[in-house]
């Protein structure tokens, strides 16, 4: 699957993911109470300057976040109408700084590294029966299901068009839902046939004795 990571070898790339996350948290907390437009603006410029570590590709990809920008324009208009221009400017710069910095962390950290860094946070979930193995399997399933669902919708749409010459639209939601859910059932049957999410080796450990070797 495509990821938002931009490969590189800068100091920010080499910095452990956990440090980057902690740094981001601290910076956000420091930035939040700022009320002077000058400080907010310089924070934003500093964040942009930091972006040089991911090079031109980073700036180009940053432009993909345009939709946030539209929102910010409206935000500013609201503030102008309410006569609170200064706090509007601060809010816009603060939001942009936070978005840029958080995006920078994402651009310089591989998804695997991010997962590893989050492992200590996820470990307590073990106690309520959500093992890291289950989380990994769930992530893999999401990554596999997503393109499947898009392909299924395309397929149903093309078939409908071939039959009628029209676009299926909303009419296709019911067959889509039933077909897609049936596939999910097949996947869970296949998973069960392979020993379930915890696999056969786990049954071994429990000592239920029902392993293939016994036969």
């Amino acid at each position, binding site marked *: 699957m*495509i*990821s*938002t990571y931009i490969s590189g070898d800068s100091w920010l790339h080499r910095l452990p993911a956990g440090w980057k996350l902690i740094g*981001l948290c601290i910076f*956000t907390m420091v930035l939040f109470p700022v009320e002077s437009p000058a400080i907010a603006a310089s924070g934003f410029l500093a964040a942009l300057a930091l972006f040089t570590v991911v090079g031109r590709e980073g700036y180009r990809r940053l432009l*993909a976040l*345009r*939709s*946030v920008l*539209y*929102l*910010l*324009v*409206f935000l500013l208009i*609201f*503030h102008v109408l*309410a006569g*609170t221009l200064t*706090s*509007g400017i601060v*809010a816009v710069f603060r*939001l942009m700084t*936070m*978005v*840029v*910095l*958080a*995006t920078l962390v*994402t651009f310089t950290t591989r*998804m695997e590294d*991010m997962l590893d860094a*989050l492992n200590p946070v996820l470990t307590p979930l073990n106690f309520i029966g959500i093992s890291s193995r*289950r989380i990994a*399997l*769930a*992530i893999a*399933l*999401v*990554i*596999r*299901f*997503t393109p499947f*669902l*898009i392909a299924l*919708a395309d397929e149903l749409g093309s078939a409908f068009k071939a039959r009628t010459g029209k676009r299926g639209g909303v009419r296709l*939601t*019911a067959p889509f*839902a*039933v077909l*897609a*859910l*049936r596939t*999910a*059932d097949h*996947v*869970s049957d296949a*998973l*069960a046939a392979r020993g*379930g*999410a915890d696999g056969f080796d786990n049954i071994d450990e429990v000592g239920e004795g029902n392993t293939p070797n016994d036969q």
Partner: protein
Amino acid sequence: MTNDRMLVYVSFYAALIAALGLFPLFNIPFLGGVPITAQTLGVMLAGVMLGPVRGAVAVVLFLFLVAIGAPLLAGGRGGLGIFAGPSAGFLIGWPVGAFIAGGLMRQMKERSVIVSAGVSAAIGGIGVVYLFGIPGLMLLADLSFGQAAFGSLVYIPGDLIKVALTAVIAQSVARGLPSALVSRV
């Protein structure tokens, strides 16, 4: 329902939310490009179909993938930056909305699927999501309640379409594949 089947279903709905973002169902370029995405349809469906806890877990799984950098939000957005943006409140409202929608669906067991799915999706998917989204906008963007609420009005017509779709889909699944309507089994 076995645990493994639930794992698959939870992943399925997380993937559905992702697919709805990539698949332009009604991504109307409204108001200078703020997209009206179909992704909240996935949130409503997760709650209505899976019930409270599993529905919320499906949404959390999706948001987790986005947070660690998967570009699965509408328009190929992803990463931590999204949770720092002005619409972060809405994203936090998603799993809570799915939870409430699932709980209501379960409460209304006596009523027809189409009615209870519609009501659950409207309260969970619109009411609860905005309950988080509007204060989020106020806090992150320094807006007054009136401004934030007015700004959010743009999305209401799209949301109502999604509520109707959720009701219709729940009804067709109840007929075509009743075992998949987990909130009711």
